[in-house]
């Protein structure tokens, strides 16, 4: 069995996997692009090998190079993390063909769940409900879609097959609106993606995005570790997750958990995976998709179950039986995860790049920070904007919200803009505190300006004082420079110093 693991990823998840390997006494081999020579995963791994230039297609997506490195350095297994090659069945297949262990599901399961149509058919055959619609049924004509629409029921959504980001999407309230909206959606999809194909999907009102963590071993055992609430999203990017879901009750959890295990079994699933559901306000739930990999938000499940999911992944890959049965598991307390991204929440969440000049991470009881960066490291434009995951645990949902608030307030990241203020505003939001939100909350009913925080009335006054003190200090400095005989240069010196300080 393998004793060295190659980690085919970067950033916080590569660091996370190195930690798990080290705690299991396994050796680790990192891979890196030219932009990542100083990255934490390279510094921490036992070995590190250069893949190629910074762009992903020349480095982290070079499955062939990665397999070659694994063979040369004697790594017996490859952990793909998430993103990059994690859900590429051809890569998993090549890993196996090279005589290495792929720490994840079998290629056939990745393929089955990776194709929307096959996935929907497979789980439907296993008795799992899917969101009613025509996704995965190929390219249908307007006539066919108009025929099927009443069976799905209104309201429904027209969505672009090649889609994403809301492009080519239309909401349809009745059949007579539909021909015009189909035209518009196809036109938009064609111009955005060069592909005018669309499909229909039932519109789930007040939908919540709730997912179940699955573990399956090679001995046929499949268990779930409870749910995660992931409804807080922006442009289909999850921003904040919690476990358990405030919407859940024990009866529904048992029911959904069983369905999740059934869906996993339908593709002979192996290792860790996640079944995503949409849940409507009447607790009807529909299979959305299965993520056949470790999830970004896996730590909140670890916090409430006490199970180290990455270590379990490695044990499963080594052929071990699961150490837990479904009955061993219970949910203890409440966990939240805030994804800290290098994005400006005050400017349309534009990404922000630069060298981190200072990082002070929160800590103390119930606080965990998973990160791949440090002060002095540069956030480059080549990869995603995730800087770290701030994870808190508390005995109750109330306690963990208070803890997350104080942790966010403690967090200092200088050098790039971050979405920490967004999370702070969410933590103060009455709707979030009450647990009454759905997948449209962030985009439609949330604004950085509508701040529910109490006792913040005097903050503008304090900001005025701070700004005045800074201005005063800088003008004092500049006049001192002038007095030292540099009158000609006016005050450019302090300006450049000030700007340098804020680069």
């Amino acid at each position, binding site marked *: 069995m393998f004793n060295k693991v190659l980690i085919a990823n970067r950033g916080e998840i590569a660091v996370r996997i190195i930690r798990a390997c080290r705690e299991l006494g396994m050796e680790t081999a990192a891979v890196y692009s030219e932009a990542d020579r100083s990255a934490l995963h390279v510094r921490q791994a036992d070995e590190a090998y250069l893949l190629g230039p910074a762009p992903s297609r020349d480095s982290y997506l070079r499955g062939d190079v990665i397999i070659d490195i694994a063979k040369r350095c004697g790594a017996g297994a490859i952990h793909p993390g998430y993103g990059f090659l994690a859900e590429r069945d051809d890569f998993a297949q090549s890993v196996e063909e090279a005589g290495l262990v792929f720490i994840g599901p079998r290629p056939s399961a990745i393929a089955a769940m990776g194709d929307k149509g096959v996935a929907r058919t497979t789980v439907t055959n296993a008795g799992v409900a899917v969101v009613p619609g025509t996704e995965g049924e190929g390219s249908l004509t307007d006539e066919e879609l108009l025929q099927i629409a009443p069976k799905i029921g209104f309201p429904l959504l027209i969505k672009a097959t090649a889609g994403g980001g809301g492009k080519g999407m239309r909401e349809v309230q009745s059949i007579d609106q539909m021909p015009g909206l189909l035209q518009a959606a196809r036109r938009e999809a064609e111009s955005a993606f060069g592909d005018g194909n669309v499909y229909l999907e039932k519109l789930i009102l007040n939908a919540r995005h709730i997912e179940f963590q699955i573990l399956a071993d090679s001995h046929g055992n499949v268990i779930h570790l409870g749910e995660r609430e992931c409804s807080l999203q922006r442009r289909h990017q999850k921003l904040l997750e919690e476990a358990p879901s405030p919407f859940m009750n024990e009866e529904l959890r048992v029911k959904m958990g069983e369905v999740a295990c059934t869906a996993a079994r339908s593709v002979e699933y192996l290792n860790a995976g996640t079944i995503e559901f949409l849940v409507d306000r009447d607790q009807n739930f529909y299979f959305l998709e299965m993520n056949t990999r470790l999830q970004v938000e896996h730590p909140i499940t670890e916090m409430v179950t006490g199970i180290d999911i990455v270590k379990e992944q490695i044990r499963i890959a080594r052929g071990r039986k699961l150490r837990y049965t479904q009955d061993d598991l219970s949910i203890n307390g409440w966990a939240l995860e805030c994804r800290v991204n290098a994005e400006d929440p005050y400017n349309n969440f*534009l990404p922000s790049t630069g060298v981190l000049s200072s990082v002070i991470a929160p800590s103390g009881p119930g606080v965990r920070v998973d990160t791949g960066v440090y002060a002095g490291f540069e956030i480059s434009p080549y990869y995603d904007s995730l800087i770290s995951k701030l994870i808190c645990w508390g005995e109750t949902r109330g306690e963990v919200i208070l803890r997350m608030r104080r942790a966010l*307030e403690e967090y200092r990241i200088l050098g790039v803009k971050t979405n920490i203020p967004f999370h*702070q505003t969410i933590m103060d939001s009455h709707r979030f505190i009450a647990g009454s939100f759905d997948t449209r909350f962030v985009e439609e009913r949330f604004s950085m300006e509508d701040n529910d925080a109490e006792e913040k009335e005097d903050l503008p006054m304090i*900001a005025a004082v701070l700004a005045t003190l800074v201005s005063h200090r800088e003008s004092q400095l500049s006049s001192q420079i002038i007095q030292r005989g540099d009158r000609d240069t006016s005050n450019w010196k302090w300006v450049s110093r000030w700007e340098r300080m804020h680069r």
Partner: protein
Amino acid sequence: MKYIATIGDKSFEIEILSNGEIILNGEQLTADFQSVADQPIYSLLLDGQSYEASIHPTDSGIQVLLRGQLIDVRVEDERQRRLRESSGGQVIQSGDIHLKAPMPGLVVTIPVEEGQDVASGDNLIILESMKMQNELKAPRAGVISRLRVKTGDNVEQNQVLLILS
């Protein structure tokens, strides 16, 4: 030294005394103020109340990020304020806006053309960075007087993309 700090439609009169005290709207307070570890982060003890903020200059003033709120402040001394008031309180919008790239990236779409009129908030350029498509919008209405990049260009941070007149 007396200053007027303005936030939106609120104004605060702040006098900084030489002994580490300030007069804020007529009230005298001790203000112990310093930057932390040579970073643009500042600690203020105002009559014992402890505040910490990260503070950055912008084109139009000073931006204060304090307890999860971003607050734009314009600070003027008396001379500056008199100057502005004597010009009728109007800050003249100086002609051109140079739209700069907020981060390095790839220009994927330019939905406007030179000479085109745009409204405030219109998309001017779609820039791909960090695997995201980022929409750069017009900060005010105007006309695109100059396009400095084309689709497919790789641009550096702060590179001027177009000029809005």
